[in-house]
């Protein structure tokens, strides 16, 4: 069994988690040009290497961030989103 360490719930079976893909800066939909908005929706960097991703612990519906190597599948670090963005 593969274990993922949830910043809130501790080490859990990876079955309990869902990936939401790499973190991307979202442009302001009201101000951004159409072309940039569609690029945001439909284009991906798709990097081969280490990326920061959104994950969710499904039973507790808690979203957090994970740093993962896409080549080895190794999760290097998991952390709460407040580490990256201060809560408003």
């Amino acid at each position, binding site marked *: *069994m*593969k274990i993922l360490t949830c910043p809130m719930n501790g080490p859990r079976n*990876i*079955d309990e988690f*869902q*990936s939401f*893909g*790499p973190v991307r800066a979202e442009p302001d939909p009201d101000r951004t040009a159409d*072309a940039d908005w*569609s*690029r945001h*929706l*439909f*284009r*991906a*960097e*798709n*990097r*081969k290497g280490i*990326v920061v*991703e959104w994950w969710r612990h499904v039973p507790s519906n808690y979203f957090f961030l994970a740093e*993962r190597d*896409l*080549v*080895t*599948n190794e999760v290097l670090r998991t952390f709460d989103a407040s580490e990256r963005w201060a809560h408003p």
Partner: protein
Amino acid sequence: MMAEYSALSLLANALKGNKDWKPAWRKPDPKASYDVIIIGGGGHGLSTAYYLAKEHGITNVAVLEKGWLGSGNVGRNTTAVRSNYLLPANTRFYEHSMKLWENLSHDLNYNVMFSQRGCLNLAHTPAQFDDYARRGNAMRHLGVDAELMTTAQIKRLIPALDVSDSARFPVVGGLMQRRAGTARHDAVAWGYARGADRRGVDIIENCEVTGFLRDGDRITGVTTSRGDIRAKKVAVSVAGSTGRVMRLAGIETMPIESHVLQAFVTESLKPFIDTVVTFGMGHFYLSQSDKGGLVYGGDIDGYNSYAQRGNLPVVDEVMSEMLALFPGLARVRMLRSWGGVCDMSMDGSPIITTGPLPGMYLNCGWCYGGFKATPASGWCFAWTIAKDEPHDLNASFTLDRFHRGLVIDDKGQGATPRLH
């Protein structure tokens, strides 16, 4: 011209101790320049080379493959071939592919073991059955064969399938395409390779493209692990490596994500099932190879990945889906499992187009269903490269369709690649 492979040549070579067979393709060193370079010696790159030579008389062509032929997804897939789509752009394209499959062994003089054993999609709810009726009608409307099957008919076709009311997801019917089936994937790669080679195409293995030569915006060739090679036209056909190769050309984002799909094979069994069957309540499908092994697979791993191997939760899920359909397989041993990196597109449909840079041509976005497309993909891509414009059959498979609101989303899933 006498066919290179025939009953007669088999006999003649057998009598001579099999010493006179020519290798199926040469191992040439790269020349300094070509009319067309194709990056990627998978099924699509090889079939593109074949149709460039055969249909358009363009033979000064090199296929550059970083590993060996068949090391990518063309040698990793589960070989299901079908044309049972809903949207006309996909249906027409995949039906063209089906027609090429139907004559492929003959055309290539190479037995690709195309077996039209049918592909049955199981429905587990009345709503799903209605949905299949709609797709079946859409297919028939475009001249593709489709037929609805009742549970009793399905039971006769696949005796081992659990169609009882106590099944985890009882079967209420299915949509069958009889002309669908399977083919031998290695033979497809080798057959196209030999066909292209005999027409003069250089197939160059162990030659990784590491960058692009440019004159301003225009692509004029490639840098490789075996030196620089110039070309008037450079065609990219690298499936799961699309993002990486396009980045070498300075294109930082694509409507593609790379995800791993796994597949599995069991020990050999006696004849067990003579069709391809797909589960309707999850992602699972199964067929039996000519050797007797059950070949099956399920969903992609659920997160972006460049690892050419899969994770355990999906193994678990695929096995339980298999047992939900075929409880009798509980004690069959699994022999092998493997994974391949798939180029999942934002709408689940492919891209076959000129550009996006001058001198460049692009073929990608095959998700986990590009094996069946191999003949039509090469055929359309060759046309696009030769004429500098798409054929009608691939005119919708553009790169800018996403920005223009012209997505081809057969499943209606939205712009989330892992859901297609």
